[in-house]
């Protein structure tokens, strides 16, 4: 694989503060990051920041200008004109950058620039497709995602390539839509390795509140996989918080008692796989998944997010992005990003029609289906 030297990486961000994804990712390229048992630093590479809209000097940005020579640029065109790579990060609670901003980047970046969008590409599938088309027309390499897609797993497992899967489930916590974005970025890298790859999603269903538990009793989603996923959690809530005890949360019937405003999304994939996304605030405070193969094996793990303030899942993401920027080869197919965007758009409709199936023909089309390279 051919690689290129990186001379300039530009961050185009809508907010910057300590602990934001923008700060976490920018610092990895500005000051370095731990990687495979050593500290890695990009030598000879300028890091520039364009804050959009430009605001008064921020102390944390100024600190980086003074300490590490961060290049602050108020003009977007100038900021990206000579960049080898551009990282676009919207506001943290939105998961998606401003469409105008992304479009400006794609219209002004030079050919062969590698662009990474933190979160999702656009608020709608149509808009995301337009962004992809624009990037392709200008020979810009585009991808999107979050660190959850590449973070550590406990245990360090993966679905063997080509194994047929029957069921998949991920439990997350957090507010909508951030939790849903993380759930999709956490689960899709696991299930897209199944036989014939990702086939697309033909319909979705949404449950909330008590309806979730009744649906579980009816077998609409697999309780056995919830049990397996919960067994991987290091942060169960309820009695463990009160007095440190371990607990079979599901077996003891504690999950419905603890869950605060739970949300459940069920995705029917075109190849028959059923995926369940559960947002269980109040039950666990970490991300865990379980999948079942057609042969009945269950594979489960925690998507381990190292503690703050460092949050070294961003070091993992930085390593993946550095390879992308150097090689021009996106770390995953763009269809994964289109599927995530389309599902989030469908979730908006789904949440208004709870317990009813929503057909998603545009997400079940061959244009969305993809296989990851062997």
């Amino acid at each position, binding site marked *: 694989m051919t690689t290129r030297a990186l001379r300039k990486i530009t961050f185009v961000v809508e907010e910057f503060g300590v602990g934001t994804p923008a700060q976490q990712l920018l610092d990895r390229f500005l000051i370095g990051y731990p990687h495979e048992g050593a500290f890695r630093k990009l030598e000879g590479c300028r890091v520039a920041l364009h804050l959009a809209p430009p605001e008064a000097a921020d*102390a944390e940005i100024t600190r980086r200008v003074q300490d590490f020579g961060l290049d602050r640029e108020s003009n977007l065109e100038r900021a990206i004109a000579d960049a080898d790579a551009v990282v676009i990060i919207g506001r943290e609670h939105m998961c998606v950058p401003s469409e105008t901003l992304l479009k400006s980047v794609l219209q002004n970046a030079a050919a062969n620039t590698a662009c990474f969008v933190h979160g999702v590409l656009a608020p709608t599938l149509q808009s995301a497709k337009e962004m992809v088309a624009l990037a392709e027309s200008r020979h810009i390499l585009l991808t999107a995602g979050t660190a959850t897609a590449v973070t550590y797993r406990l245990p360090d497992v993966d679905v063997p390539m080509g194994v047929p899967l029957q069921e998949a489930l991920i439990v997350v916590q957090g507010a909508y839509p951030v939790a849903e974005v993380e759930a999709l970025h956490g689960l899709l890298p696991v299930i897209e390795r199944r036989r014939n790859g990702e086939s697309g999603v033909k319909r979705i269903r949404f449950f909330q509140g008590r309806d979730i538990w009744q649906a579980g009793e009816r077998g609409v989603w697999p309780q056995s996989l919830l049990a397996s996923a919960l067994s991987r959690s290091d942060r169960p809530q309820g009695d463990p918080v009160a007095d440190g005890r371990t607990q079979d949360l599901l077996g003891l019937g504690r999950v419905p008692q603890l869950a605060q405003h739970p949300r459940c999304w069920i995705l029917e994939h075109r190849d028959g796989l059923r995926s369940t996304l559960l947002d269980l605030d109040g039950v666990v405070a970490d991300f865990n998944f379980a999948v079942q193969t057609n042969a009945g*094996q269950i594979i489960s793990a925690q998507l381990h997010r190292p503690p703050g303030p460092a949050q070294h899942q961003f070091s993992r993401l930085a390593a993946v992005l550095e390879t992308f920027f150097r090689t021009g080869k996106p770390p995953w197919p763009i269809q994964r990003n289109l599927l995530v965007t389309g599902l989030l758009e469908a979730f908006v409709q789904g949440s208004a029609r709870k317990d009813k199936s929503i057909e998603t023909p545009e997400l079940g089309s061959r244009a969305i289906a993809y296989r990851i390279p062997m």
Partner: protein
Amino acid sequence: MTKEGKAADSQWNRREFVSSLATSAVAAASTGALLTAGVSCAHKAPRFTPRKKVAIVATIVRKYSHAQHFIDRFVEGYGWHGQHHRPAMELASLYVDQFPENDLARERSSRHGVRIYPTIEGALTLGGSDLAVDGVLIIGEHGNYAKNEKGQTLYPRYKFFKEVTNVFEKSGRAVPVFNDKHLSTRWSECAEMVADSKRLGFPFMAGSSLPVTWRIPAIDLPLGTPLEESLCICYGGVDHYDIHGLETAQCMSERRAGGEVGVKSVHAVKGQEVWAMLKEREPTRRLMFAALARSHTCQGPPGYTYAIPDMAWCRKAATNPIAYFIEHLDGFKTTLLLFNGLVDDFTYAGLIKGTGEIVSCQMYLPMPPRYTTLANFFNPQVNHIEQMVLDGTVPYPVERTLLTSGVTLFAVESLYQGQVKLETPELKVNYQPLAKSAFWRA
């Protein structure tokens, strides 16, 4: 056995019965050869055999005390191999030395029907005259105990152990014993405990949970690796967390070519002397930065969420550093760095002879309440104890903990005598590790 005890034995309630079915199946799965990382198997048919009994002898039971973690894993179960696992044995009795205001022993006893006995003998005999349990856990950590002039907390682990072995001797039989953390605060007592286990012929397991917890990445050293130096960086204090760091290093070091041969000298230093010693040791500094690169908590300067540390930053952030420099009898070196203020986790690096290659990992300690709600690094420890009670197998030789206990004691002594290097002829502890490392990987 008391009348009450017999009745309880013969009439399991429904919860216990259902639990035993699940446990049998899970136990079968959890020991099955088919298991690979993250994969659980279909259940096998349960076997209807009487459940074994264990006793826990503890200093104190309060939220997040070690005894609380062990007790709850036996009575509530815990996450293991992708399922909620319930041990295939019964926590039959407790002996608890201290009952503070925030005691949880009585609450657990009441809720789970586990009797607290006023004596260790009572807990082991279940109130009768003979040993009536199949395994004993000695959890002598936490509680209000005096410190000696060297700063060692005088936990009564040796005293507890001797009371346990007295019951064994009186009963004419012995059962497996687990001792949490280092063995005792005097070398002669540590050596006697191991000798007693040999003399009475019972499986004896001891030490820290660090060697058996997750590793990030999940690396192991092949037996016979030509390792020449090991280093662990961690946090915590002398006679407290140093044992965890020493066990972190030793579970790797013992896999070197020739196995463990024992320790020749221990030199503990603190403050500026740490940096002076490191300045003279280039390979050790290389290992230090490799280990720091596995840390997820390396403290950054103000305004930054992490550090790319250099020596100047280490000196600034680790304000009261402590280091143990350990020479083994075969020339092998171990270094332990207690860098409070710089890191809040346990990382390991080892130097391969000849190639200069470094192997490194984090031994992951999901510590509540800072980072988690459960101290799940106890899960593999408890699972190994269960296995030992079921079939007598130990996951690693007790000599590992004998050696790390000895190094801990001599490091304390080295600091007490003014940071002098101590020759340690007592620590000629040689042993061979088991082929399979016992860390958590599935």
